[in-house]
């Protein structure tokens, strides 16, 4: 094997590795992702409501496991979302279900206690977690 061919093969291998692990890397697998923190919906909401900057540095982009009672939920082709009670009249913790994995179930009951694991994206009216999977 000539030296040139060998270099070419090595380059191709590197390109292949780059393609699979960097360029085409998959989204985080939420089913197996380890939670960075576990917290109640009340406490998570309070954290953002009282000091948003600190809460952002603590929770943004992190896998957060949140437990609370269901205030409302919406399950249709457009939205799959469960809102958890926080003790605040307006704001809740909104858990958008992960659309990359089939959810454990799509029927819920208001008032039921649930735990979701998801990526925290911040607070608007609600504290929003995306790509949630139920535990």
């Amino acid at each position, binding site marked *: 094997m000539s030296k040139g061919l060998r270099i070419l093969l090595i380059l191709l291998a590197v390109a292949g590795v780059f393609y699979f692990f960097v360029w085409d*890397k*998959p989204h985080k697998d939420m089913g197996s992702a380890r939670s960075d923190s576990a917290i109640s919906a009340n406490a998570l909401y309070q954290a953002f409501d009282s000091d948003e900057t600190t809460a*952002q540095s603590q929770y*943004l982009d992190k896998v957060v496991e949140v437990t609370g009672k269901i205030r409302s939920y919406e399950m249709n082709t457009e939205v799959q979302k469960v809102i958890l009670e926080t003790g605040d009249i307006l704001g809740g913790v*909104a858990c958008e279900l992960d659309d990359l994995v089939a959810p454990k179930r799509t029927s819920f009951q208001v008032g039921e206690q649930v735990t979701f694991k998801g990526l925290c*994206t911040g607070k*608007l009216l*609600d504290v*929003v977690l*995306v790509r949630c999977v139920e535990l």
Partner: protein
Amino acid sequence: MRFGILLLLTLSLLSTDLVAQKWFTRDGKISFFSEAPLEKIEAENSSGTSVLDAESGRIEFAVLIKGFQFESALMQEHFNENYMDSDKFPKSTFKGYIEDPETILWDQDGEYEVSVKGDLTIHGVTKEVSVPASFSMKEGSLSGNCTFVVAVADYDIKIPKLVRENIAKEVEISVQSDYKIFQ
């Protein structure tokens, strides 16, 4: 006693007066799309919040940048870290008003074309924009649609020379929201 009942009646009438109604959503869909010679980029966020005051025509929107979902994980990472600095600027907002709110008959079914004007904040930069929007009222539910184009340079989003061919200079943003009556 009679006064009390009268007051109650007036209040209940007021609260069903659609013209003076406030509308809101926490499931607003915001997506964007751009097509450059080498790459098509699109992402969607389905947790935009919006409040609309029918009487004054005031409208506000907010969206969390980290909530945009891309098909490619790498693109999503670059979007957050290199272009939008979403740790520093986690939200984008729009605060404005419907320029011609009297066009919309809030208590009647119909499709209405209006113009919405206000301050759009992306990446910490605020610009005044005026965009066409359409609202549709059907059986007491209100939905709004709006598509407009922004130039990334206007919002101080820098695209490195190396990837200039991959990323379009203009991005089309679509907003779709189904409002509920705010109680």
